[in-house]
Every structure is written in structure tokens, then in C-alpha cells.
């Protein structure tokens, strides 16, 4: 251990220059950093629901639908119609857009005697010139069942311009282009963007905004707290620098590995800032505490204390993050795990090598009696928090344990009340444009989440088309579906136009002749494949709660059971089903990651203390904290989602650090003092100070997230801060109480020699 300290001191300039050069290199890589916040991209491709969803996208020209919603008094007013046409024309010409459907280009089949019109719903003949004509047109258009509630609201106050994206195109880049284009048009009516691509874009925007806005605040806050704690510039700069370099290096490698930031991994900088600074805080705190007269000796001594706990706390934190690589269902969560683990590794490495090297280069003046000179001693934390806390623990150890047990019991009740939420549209605050768009879509257009029923078979067969029509009726009878579209609708409508009723002809040859009329209308290519071997029913799902998709799925499965298909197959997919799959998998992966993290952390801590029981003791505060965390989530209604799902494993990884530092320090203290009580008190005052500084700075860092525009991020910040509060208080109250109770029992059983490492003789004799 001394060797590492000597290396850090001897090669301090080399270390400094190397870190500088490599930081410049990794910093340059950030130029290529990209954000991908699409959850669907993150789902495993071999998942049956996901693969069918992707297949729909490939075969029917885009499972990703985008929409621009326009709102006004009457969307058929000439001004609004002109705007719709401008947008429609611009979208039609845009690279990356496969098809556009709007009021100004939607096809309509009209029959009047022998006149048959397959043309545009709104055309040169009925295009309104004034408000009066617009009002008349509104009556006609909102009475048309093919469009009302589908592309125009039944009251005529909102309309959507619906489009699909070209396969293989960068959907998000195209969506961004659309947003920019519409913004430049200076529309007089209100407009919103809907569909998963825009939601993803909004998320990415918020991520970028949050990074730009919140990280500096987080830095500032942590700096202020560090300054108040250490009362020195070095005490601020070194922990912050350590964290910043760790973020830089981890992100640089992340980019070089070809990975992209997501709505999950974007949190890593804040996490590393909070976690990474902790290692430097502990090392710095220890160097400051050392009584040695010169800096070199102080570094050597401090590192001899700190290498094991810092390495171990980093290892356990990394285990917490790495558990996502093995346990997570979503790629974005696995990427997060890797990035955060790398960041943690670098932060620990810098704390043990770079911080000592920097202190060796820029040594602080030391007091005559040893210890670094601070402008002010900071007795407040010691006098008003740590000392009373240690005395309370020593006196009321049983009460402390009882309070924790009570909290644990209440939490168990809360755990059973946890809700889950995977719908990205729930991630925004109610007044955010994405939320407003979602609300309009739900209220006026029967939802925005597409559901696809895929028919595989001969799409000109009367049997298949009749089944399609029947299933559409069945779907519309459910409370979740208000509109459906399929090729069967078109065929029936054309048959009606030919004077044979709004039904599917019984003769396949007649269907084939009707097909002549269908031509290559863009809307048709979205409903049936070119080979006519697959067709889809497109419906919009309007859900009101978490369980709706399950109810709807059961309803659909009942139909499939009761109507076995012959020469064709029917399958159902769509965004709500993907969400449902995500929901189930989130819970599974959360449990799996957490179990991996708990088991590995207990193993590591047990190995450190060479005893499973001690490992378990040290893990108790964080295990209790996690239970309480889940309890709070259940009791307060904070849902489990792609972001909050990370909290428990992160809390496990970070929170265990406090216990490790505490027990590690206690093991050193017990060698120097005659009394366990004194050792506990000394540990609480020295290690406890670092724990408190770390808890306050980490929590402050994470609490900055309450200013995020993303709801899950707000919860994430609060939950991490809560878990830090829980684990620090656990380490400073529950853990010493258990130690004190455990030692008493050992003493009672005359097994005092084995209490905790090596007890001093005075304790062994029961003094």
C-alpha cells in the first residue's frame, strides 16, 4: 500500500501530464457523442412482440407514425387549410417521409348515381373561400365516417397531419427537421407534435437541456457544500476535478465503443459527480486528519488506511452498476451500467493516484501538530451532529434498532403498493407540449398509440377480408378502440361504390377487379403488402390506466380463440403491447439486477471482513434502506419506470460504501483505543464526517434533478437522495448499534476475542 503512495508521490508530474493528455484525448471523443432515447431501439430484437412490431414497420412502411396536430376554432377555415396544405406538401417532399395523410390530400370515395369519385376529400371544387363556406364544409367533413375522429375531430376544432417514416432513415433526425420546418412556418393556429419519434425527441431535448442546465448547478452546489465542509479550495477542487475527469474518461471510452447516451445513461455524469467525488472526499479527509508533519508522510499514512476501503467501495458500487449488464432487459439500462461502472472505476483510480499526486505537487501548509491547515475548523458538524449522534447510539442502541425495525415493517406494506409506468408520454409534466398533444390525441382522436392486427394470408380472399371487417367491428366494441383502418374497409367501400353494398364481395375475381381501382395510393401500401400476402388493421389505442392493455389483450385473445383462422393467421402487436412487455420485463430485470447486486456486495464485504456474519451486518443498513425506499415509492405513488428502476441497485452500490468506510475505520480504531465505545465514537467523528459530507453533497447533487423537465428524473433525484439519507443514517446509527449489541452478546458468551478483528486487551477483559 505504501508502494502505491510512493509511486503517486515520485511520479506525480508524470501522472499529472498523463492524466492531462488522456483527458484531452477522451474529451475530443465527446465531439462524437450521440443521444438515442428511443426505448423501442433498446428492446431485445428477439422478443416476439418486438419482432412482430418491427416486422410491421418493415412490411407496411413504418410502424412509427408521426403526427402534427393543429388546433383552432374551425380547422376548415381557409387559413388553416392553407397551412395544412403547406405542411402536407413540405412533408411529402421531405426525404425520409414515406407517406403523408391530411385533410388536404386524404382520398375519399363518393358515389352519386353512376358518378363515382375516388378523389381528394377537399379539392378545388369544395375548397372554402370564406368562413361561411368553411362552416358548411365542417358539417360535411365531420359527418364523413372515414375521416371524423380519425383525421379531424368530430367537432372540427382539431386535425392531424399523419405521416410515416421511410424505413432505415434516421427517424429522429427527420422528426427534428419537421419540427424546425413547422416552427419556421409561423402558423397562427396552435400546433403540437405527436407520436413516439417526437416523444423521443422531446426526451432527448430535455436530456440535453438538463445536462446543460443541471450539471453546472450540481457542480456548484457540491462545490459549496465541499467548501463548507473542508474550508479549503483544495477540498473543493480535488473532489470535483476527480469526478469531472472520471466523467470525461468514461464518456470518451463510451463513445469509442460506439454507444449512445439514452434517457437513462444521461444521468451518469450527475451520478459520477456525486459518487466519484466521494472517493476523493474520503482520501482528502483522511490526509487532513493525519497528524504527520510533512505532506509526503501524511499521504503515505492516509493511503495505507484508504486504499482498501476506497477500492472496496468502488468495487461494490461497480457491482451495483454492473448488475444491470447481466440483469437488465433494456439495452439502454445495460449501457448505463457499463458507463457508470467505468466512471466509478476511474473516480476511484483518480482518488487513489491522481489526488495524492496533486497534493504532492501542491502541498498544503501543515499545522505544527500535524494535519492540513484550514482557514477555519469546522466544529458545527462534529459538535451538533456527529457527537450527539454517537452518544445517542451508544446510549440507545436498542431504541435505534427498534426504530429501524418499525420503519422496515411499514415499508413492507408500501412495497406491495408499488405501481409501474413504462409509457413515455407519462414522463412529462402536464403542461409540456408532449403531454398536451397526448391529451388532445386521447380526447379527440381516440389515442395516439397504434395497435396493429397482422393478417398473414391471401389478402384478396373473401374469407380473410370478411374476417378483417368482423374483427374491426369487434375491436370498436371495446372501450379502448374508436377507429380502425384496413384494406377490407377500402374493398367494402369500393364494392358499395360499384352498387353492390358496403360488404366484401363473395367472389375473389370481383375483389381483384376492385383492386384495379385501389392503384398505388400511399394509404393502401400502409394497409397491405405489395405481394398481397399480409394486411393489417391499424387502430389507435386509448388507455386510461396501467391495466387497460391487459384487459384489451384478453378481449382480443378471446376473439382469436372463438374464431380459429383457416388459411391465414392473425397476430396482434403495437406500442401498447411493447409497453406491456417492457413493463413485465422491467420488474423481472429489476429483481434480477438487485439480487445480483445484493449477493455480490455481501460476498465482497464478507471477504473484506473475513466473516459472512460481519458482511451481513455491514450490509444491513443498505438492505433496510432499499426496503424503505421501495416502501416510500409504494406509499407515495412514485412509479417504477425505466429510470426509477435503477435506484435500488445504485443505492446498493453507493450506500454500502458508508458501511464499508465505517467498519473499515472501526477496525483501525479498535486497535488504538481501549474501549469499543470510544472506537465507535472516534469512527463516527472521523469516518462519520466524511460520510456526512458525502451524503450531503451526493444528495444535493441528485436533488438538483427535481428541476428536471422529466418526471422520472425528478423521482430519481429524490429517491437517490432518500437512499443516501437512509444508508448514511443506517451506517451512522443502525450499524454502530448492531456492533455495540453484537459485541455485548459476544462478551456475554465469552467470545469477545472474535468480536471485530482484534479487540484491545482492555476490552477483552471487559473493562
Amino acid at each position, binding site marked *: 500500500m505504501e508502494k502505491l503512495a510512493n509511486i503517486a508521490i515520485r511520479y506525480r508530474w508524470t501522472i499529472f501530464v498523463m492524466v492531462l493528455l488522456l483527458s484531452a484525448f477522451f474529451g475530443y471523443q465527446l465531439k462524437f457523442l450521440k443521444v438515442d432515447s428511443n426505448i423501442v431501439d433498446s428492446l431485445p430484437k428477439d422478443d416476439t412482440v418486438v419482432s412482430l412490431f418491427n416486422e410491421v414497420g418493415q412490411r407496411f412502411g413504418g410502424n412509427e407514425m408521426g403526427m402534427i396536430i393543429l388546433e383552432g376554432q374551425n380547422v376548415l377555415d381557409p387559413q388553416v387549410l392553407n397551412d395544412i396544405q403547406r405542411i402536407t*406538401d*413540405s412533408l*411529402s*417532399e421531405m426525404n425520409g417521409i414515406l407517406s403523408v395523410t391530411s385533410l388536404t390530400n386524404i*382520398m375519399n370515395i*363518393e358515389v352519386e348515381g*353512376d*358518378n*363515382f*369519385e*375516388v*378523389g*381528394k376529400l377537399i*379539392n*378545388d*371544387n369544395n375548397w372554402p373561400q370564406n368562413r361561411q363556406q368553411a362552416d358548411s364544409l365542417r358539417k360535411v367533413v365531420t359527418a364523413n365516417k372515414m375521416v371524423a375522429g380519425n383525421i379531424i375531430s368530430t367537432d372540427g376544432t382539431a386535425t392531424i397531419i399523419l405521416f410515416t417514416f421511410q424505413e432505415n432513415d434516421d427517424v429522429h433526425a427527420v422528426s427534428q427537421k419537421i419540427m424546425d420546418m413547422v416552427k419556421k412556418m409561423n402558423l397562427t393556429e396552435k400546433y403540437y407534435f405527436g407520436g413516439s419519434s417526437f416523444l423521443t425527441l422531446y426526451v432527448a431535448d430535455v436530456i440535453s437541456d438538463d445536462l446543460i442546465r443541471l450539471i453546472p448547478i450540481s457542480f456548484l452546489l457540491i462545490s459549496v457544500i465541499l467548501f463548507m465542509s473542508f474550508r479549503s479550495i483544495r477540498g473543493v477542487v480535488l473532489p470535483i476535478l476527480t469526478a469531472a475527469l472520471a466523467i470525461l474518461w468514461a464518456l470518451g471510452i463510451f463513445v469509442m465503443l460506439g454507444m449512445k447516451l439514452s434517457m437513462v445513461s444521461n444521468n451518469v455524469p450527475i451520478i459520477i459527480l456525486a459518487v466519484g467525488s466521494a472517493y476523493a472526499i474520503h482520501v482528502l479527509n483522511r490526509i487532513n486528519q493525519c497528524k504527520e508533519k510533512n505532506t509526503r508522510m501524511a499521504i503515505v499514512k492516509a493511503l495505507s488506511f484508504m486504499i482498501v476501503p476506497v477500492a472496496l467501495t468502488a468495487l461494490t458500487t461497480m457491482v451495483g452498476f454492473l448488475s444491470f449488464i447481466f440483469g437488465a432487459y433494456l439495452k439502454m439500462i445495460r449501457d448505463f451500467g457499463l458507463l457508470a461502472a467505468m466512471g466509478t472505476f476511474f473516480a476511484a483510480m483518480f482518488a487513489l493516484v491522481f489526488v495524492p499526486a496533486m497534493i504532492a505537487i501542491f502541498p498544503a501548509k501543515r499545522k505544527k501538530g500535524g494535519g492540513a491547515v484550514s482557514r477555519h475548523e469546522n466544529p458545527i458538524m462534529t459538535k451538533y451532529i456527529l457527537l450527539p449522534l454517537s452518544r445517542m447510539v451508544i446510549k440507545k442502541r436498542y431504541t435505534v434498532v427498534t426504530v429501524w425495525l418499525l420503519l422496515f415493517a411499514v415499508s413492507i406494506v408500501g412495497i406491495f403498493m408499488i405501481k409501474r409506468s413504462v409509457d413515455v408520454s407519462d414522463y412529462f409534466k402536464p403542461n409540456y407540449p408532449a403531454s398536451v398533444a397526448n391529451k388532445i390525441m386521447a380526447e379527440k382522436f381516440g389515442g395516439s398509440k397504434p395497435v396493429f392486427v397482422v393478417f398473414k394470408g391471401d389478402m384478396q380472399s373473401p374469407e380473410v377480408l370478411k374476417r378483417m371487417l368482423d374483427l374491426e367491428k369487434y375491436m370498436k366494441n371495446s372501450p379502448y378502440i374508436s377507429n380502425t383502418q384496413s384494406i377490407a374497409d377500402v374493398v367494402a367501400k369500393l364494392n358499395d*361504390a*360499384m*352498387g*353492390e353494398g358496403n360488404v366484401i364481395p363473395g*367472389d375473389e*375475381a*370481383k375483389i*381483384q*377487379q*376492385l*383492386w*384495379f*381501382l385501389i*392503384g*398505388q*395510393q400511399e394509404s393502401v401500401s400502409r394497409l397491405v403488402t*405489395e*405481394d398481397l400476402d399480409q394486411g393489417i388493421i391499424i387502430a389507435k389505442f386509448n388507455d386510461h390506466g396501467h391495466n387497460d392493455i391487459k384487459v384489451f389483450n384478453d378481449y382480443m385473445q378471446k376473439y382469436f380463440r372463438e374464431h380459429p383462422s383457416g388459411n391465414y393467421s392473425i397476430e396482434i402487436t403495437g406500442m401498447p403491447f411493447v409497453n406491456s412487455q417492457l413493463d413485465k420485463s422491467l420488474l423481472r430485470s429489476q429483481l434480477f439486477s438487485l439480487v445480483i447486486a445484493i449477493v455480490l456486495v455481501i460476498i465482497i464485504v464478507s471477504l473484506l471482513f473475513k466473516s459472512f456474519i460481519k458482511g451481513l451486518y455491514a450490509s444491513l443498513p443498505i438492505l433496510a434502506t432499499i426496503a424503505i425506499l421501495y416502501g416510500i415509492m409504494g406509499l407515495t405513488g412514485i412509479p417504477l419506470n425505466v429510470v426509477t428502476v435503477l435506484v435500488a441497485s445504485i443505492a446498493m452500490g453507493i450506500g454500502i460504501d458508508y458501511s464499508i468506510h465505517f467498519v473499515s475505520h472501526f477496525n483501525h480504531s479498535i486497535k488504538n483505543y481501549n474501549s469499543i465505545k470510544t472506537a465507535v465514537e472516534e469512527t463516527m467523528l472521523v469516518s462519520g464526517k466524511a460520510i456526512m459530507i458525502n451524503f450531503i453533497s451526493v444528495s444535493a447533487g441528485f436533488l438538483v434533478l427535481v428541476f428536471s423537465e422529466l418526471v422520472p428524473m425528478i423521482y430519481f433525484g429524490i429517491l437517490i437522495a432518500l437512499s443516501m439519507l437512509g444508508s448514511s443514517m443506517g451506517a451512522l446509527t443502525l450499524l454502530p448499534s448492531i456492533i455495540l449489541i453484537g459485541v455485548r452478546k459476544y462478551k456475554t458468551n465469552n467470545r469477545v476475542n472474535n468480536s471485530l478483528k482484534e479487540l484491545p486487551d482492555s476490552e477483552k477483559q471487559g473493562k
Partner: protein
Amino acid sequence: MKTRIFLIVAGFLLLSVIKAKGQEEAKDILSKMDDVIFSIKDKTADVKMVLINLKNGKENVKKAVIMQKGHSKKMFRYVYPKSDSGIATLTLPGDQIYLYLPLFKSVKKISSNSNGGAFNKSDFSLRDTPTKPYSELYTPKLEATTDTSYILTLIPKADKWVYGKLVATIDKTQYYLEKLEYYSQKGQKLKEAVYHYKKIDSHWVADKVTMTNAVKQHKTVTIMSNIKINTGLNDDLFTIENLKGGKK
């Protein structure tokens, strides 16, 4: 000073004369192109249409018999594939289009509102085969002259037109249309038609047209065979009755 003013005015005048001359030349070229196209009084032919999806290379073949008198009367009767056999369309002056589906035994008039769109999966829209001379519909501008061709930009005279402009490449000696590019109102290239000609009875007749739709990644190749021109087709052939009956 006076000399300067004189030079500027003279320059402007010269430019105006050159411009006017250029416009006249462009009009003349377009008019000659119209003469070539509209010189054929009537035409019958067997048509083979190969529809190609450029995204996956899939081809779909349709065959029909065409009868045309002038440019406003046209009858298409499909013979292949079997499912389309007997389906016929009749175009009459005033953009009136009638459709006959034999299995339904009824004729329906298709609204002119839809004639901007493609028909029966081909890349030709009804606007692509104008019933009036180009010089009546477009204002030409001579863009360039090569060794073999003139290149004209055609701006629609109508305010609302499906295309923003056309760019026509016209053979310098015979004045037939070699290539026609279709652009949107915003100047994006939408389609391109390339023509191949055959001389029949001293008339240049397009026997192969390849229309490529860049936006939809789709191509239609129309090949005409057994072409007969100026045979004196009777107006009675272009009636709704004949649309049902299939008289040749």
C-alpha cells in the same frame, strides 16, 4: 456622363432584345415539339406495362390494347393479367374518365378530382398525358442548347398545378421530346420520363417510355408494339356503349 447613360440604356435595350429573342425561340421550339406530338390523328397499339419497385426489384406486368383519337379521346382495355382482363377506361374531352369493371357490369364516371394521382399502379398520372398542347399549358424558357438537344424549362400557366415546373429535353433536328423531368412547387425533382421513338409513316411515335418516380422509388416502362397510326378511327369507338362492349 451622357455617354455613360447612353451605354447603360443601350445595354438594357440589347438585353431586352436578346431576352425577347430567347423567349420567341423557346416558344418556337415548344410549338414544334407540340406539332410532332399532335401530328398523329389516331393510334392503336398493344401496350405492355412493366411496373418495377426499385426498392426490391419486384416487377409486375400488365398488358392492354390502346385506341386513341387526337389527344382527348382514349380507350384502354386490359388483357393481362387475367384478373384485370376486360377492365377498360375511356377518356373523353373535358377530362371525363369512365371506368368499366366487367364483373360488376357497370360503367362509373370517375371524378376529375382524382386525375392528379397515379392510375392502376403505374407512375403515369393522368396529368402526365395532357390533352392540350404543352405550349397552351406552359410558358417555356430556353435553358441550354447542346449538340443534339434543346433544354427548356416549362412553367405552368395555371396558378394551381400539380407540378411546379417541367424540364424538357427536345431533339434538335426532329423536335421530339427526349426526356421530361417533373419538379414540385418547391423545386424537388419528382419524376423523370425518358422517351424512345420509332418512325412510322414519316411520324415520330414514342414506342417506349420509361417513367421513374424518384420519390416513391418506382418505375414504369411502357412498351408499345403493333402500332398503327392515322387509320381513321371512328368517333363511335369512343363511347360508353363501346366501353362495355369491347368493339375494336
